[in-house]
């Protein structure tokens, strides 16, 4: 009898858990993996990640997955493979023995095959010159690709129905009351990403707006900005102390999607490093200078006191002047060192005339 009250209305709308899309950004930086090889070689890590992907797909048969490699000089799609005309013939005869295996669920086999093929391709096309010129990874590019893909998938999932609802040919309208739940998992091995500070933070804020958690699984190295990314998007950040146990970490901490995370206590980072990188030399700074107009950060006053971003002429006040003996001056300098020199009447940089 109590069933007829207001609280029951929404039961009709609520259905089973919404499918989720997992985009994995795999850091394939050759330098970092070479360092990691004694504890966890790339091949083993890939095998673990494949099991993880299968587990994700097993949870719900509408679940989707996508994998981007963030390589040393470019970001590449591993799965789904970008449509290319050259590979078609090669792929069909390479895949046949795998795919007819009756001991493996076919969707799993398809993904594994495609992922391994494209990864091999990526590694074989990497030249020495590519490796020697850079030691980092194109994380920002990969994250951007991931966000773009999520956007496309979300539109595909919800949008089709609104566009083609009038026509009778709306074959695959899969409108669900709750949209596709997406998240990004970054498997990161590289260290410093300071030179990509701005693009990474931009993707972070985009993800934050779209409510896409960015989970970070750190196998090696330490990156300030990925910590900030996961913190801002309410993702999980984990630094593995023993990378051999990668699979268990993946299964326990990173497999639950947003729905089940509500019921779980996610591992959290104790301290988040909120430092920023300067716009001039890409150095991570504790204390720096901030343009009063566009809020760009500089580690030292830009040349000619002109902001590099917005070209505003900044008046630096007395910064850099020889310390005078007058005690009042000394106090002033301290303030300037404090980064933002508010509070003093003259010191606030103002746009020049």
């Amino acid at each position: 009898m109590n069933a007829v009250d207001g609280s029951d209305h929404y039961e009709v709308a609520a259905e089973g858990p919404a499918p989720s899309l997992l985009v994995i950004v795999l850091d394939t930086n050759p330098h970092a993996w070479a360092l990691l090889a004694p504890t966890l070689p790339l091949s083993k890590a890939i095998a673990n990640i494949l099991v993880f992907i299968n587990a994700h797909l097993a949870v719900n048969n509408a679940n989707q997955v996508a994998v981007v490699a963030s390589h040393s000089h470019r970001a590449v799609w591993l799965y789904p493979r970008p449509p290319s005309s050259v590979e078609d013939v090669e792929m069909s005869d390479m895949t046949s023995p795998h795919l007819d295996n009756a001991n493996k669920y076919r969707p799993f086999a398809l993904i594994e095959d495609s992922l391994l093929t494209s990864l091999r391709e990526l590694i074989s096309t990497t030249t020495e010159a590519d490796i020697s010129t850079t030691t980092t990874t194109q994380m920002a590019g990969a994250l951007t690709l991931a966000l773009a893909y999520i956007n496309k998938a979300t539109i595909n999932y919800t949008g089709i129905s609104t566009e083609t609802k009038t026509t009778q040919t709306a074959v695959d309208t899969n409108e669900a009351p709750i949209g596709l739940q997406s998240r990004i998992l970054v498997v990161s091995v590289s260290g410093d990403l300071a030179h990509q500070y701005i693009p990474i933070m931009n993707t972070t804020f985009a993800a934050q707006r779209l409510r896409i958690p960015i989970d970070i699984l750190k196998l090696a190295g330490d990156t300030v900005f990925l910590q900030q990314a996961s913190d801002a998007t309410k993702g999980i950040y984990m630094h593995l102390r023993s990378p051999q146990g990668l699979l268990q970490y993946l299964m326990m901490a990173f497999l639950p999607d947003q729905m089940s995370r509500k019921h779980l206590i996610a591992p959290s980072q104790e301290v988040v490093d909120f430092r920023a990188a300067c716009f001039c030399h890409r150095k991570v700074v504790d204390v720096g200078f901030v343009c009063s107009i566009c809020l760009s950060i500089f580690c030292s006053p830009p040349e000619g006191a002109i902001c590099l971003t917005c070209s505003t002429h900044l008046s630096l006040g007395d910064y850099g002047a020889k310390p005078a003996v007058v005690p009042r001056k000394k106090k002033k300098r301290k303030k300037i060192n404090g980064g933002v020199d508010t509070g003093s009447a003259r010191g606030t940089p103002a746009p020049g005339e």
Partner: protein
Amino acid sequence: MSVSTLASFEYLERLPGTTFRRLYQQPSTALAIFRRMLPHLAKTFVMALLYMSKPFPLTDLDLWVNPNSKRERDKALQLLSRLYIITVTPPSRDDPQTITLTQKFGESLRLALTGGGEHNSFGVPSNDSVAEGVDLAFLDEYAREQWEGILHYVVNSVGQSMGGGGQGPTDAVKHLLEAGQLVTTGRHSGKGITQAGFSFLLQEVNAQVWTLLLLWIENAEKMELDSVEVLSFLFMLGSLELGRAYSKDTLTDSQRQMLPYLVDFGLVYIPRSSSGHFFPTRLATTLTSDASALRSVSAGFDAASSAGGAKGFIIIETNYRLYAYTDSPLQIAVLSLFTRFKARFPNMVSGRVTRKSVGNAISHGITSDQIITYLSTHAHPQLVKNASIHGGPVLPPTVVDQIRLWQIENERMKATPGFLFKDFENGKEYEGCVKYADEIGVLIWKNDFKKMFFVTRVEQLRDYIKSKKLK
């Protein structure tokens, strides 16, 4: 909606442990049960346990789960142990309670995820020359024809002559429908539809398929088929790919014996020219799909059926007016079970849901929940879209409530089978038990004054009381 489909799995829950252990030997079965039957949180637990080398202490699980979600946690654990997926060590004073996956299930699920082994449980694709003209559209059309034939047979037994509808199901299926008491062959009024038949009609396709299949399994024992074999075969069908030919050679004898029945149901298509392989249809490949996925699947299925109209075709307004964009006699017949139609146009019918029409349906044994589920399952995309934009329910709440109220008018009582606990020694014991029963979600009614309470399931509570007695 998911509730109605899950209901068909109640059959599985009744199976004894040995049956489960045999079922779990097939990776495809383990995967299907994992995917289809478990609530979301339970899946998370299973995956976390899957590659864990040591037993997982229950106290650690408590640390992992949000304290506010204790109820969900207990429900998940209860279901998992009922399905023999996990084993929880009995509480004792020396060791802390731990949970582990049962060996067979763990092994099979791991095999399913990683591949390998020699079980062939995901079907052997056939490389022989594939029959001409067997494409997705053909399979969909074939499956639809077979299935609608069955539905027409059930509907026609109401007495409303629909006319046409193909040649109807085979005798075997007719027998099955009668055995399952979906239709009766009464002496006085010829064939008649039963209450079960009505609920059958109002289910979504996937649930209908399962209902029929489970009926078949129950009757299979008479046909000397092993229910475990049948189930594993069905779960295997669920993992096959639509539009591919699979070889019959690797099937066991009893599985081959099942194929003709599945052909009758429209789950499998065997080309006449070559008998060496079979094609699973959409009905088969979606057997183990999730409720959310079914929306899209049934859309694909219905869209393929040119005459059947689009999947979502019902618009219902707050003033109880109902518009159904369909010209399928089957759907109109189903709707007319609880709607008073006023006008019929070439591509739509319009009518009203009235107290009398709903009351009529209820007197036939249709429940308000079934009506509501049917309406929301087949709601027009426009309704669904509006609901998702505003975050509200698909159907107008007034209508939903009113339909429920109409049912309650006649039903002042609701019977729940279960167990009554009474005569507690003291208030503390009573309170502990009630609290626990509530947490695991089996508590139906309690009376603090008389120290009595009523539960639907007793197993876990019994263990709990035993463990209390130990201490």
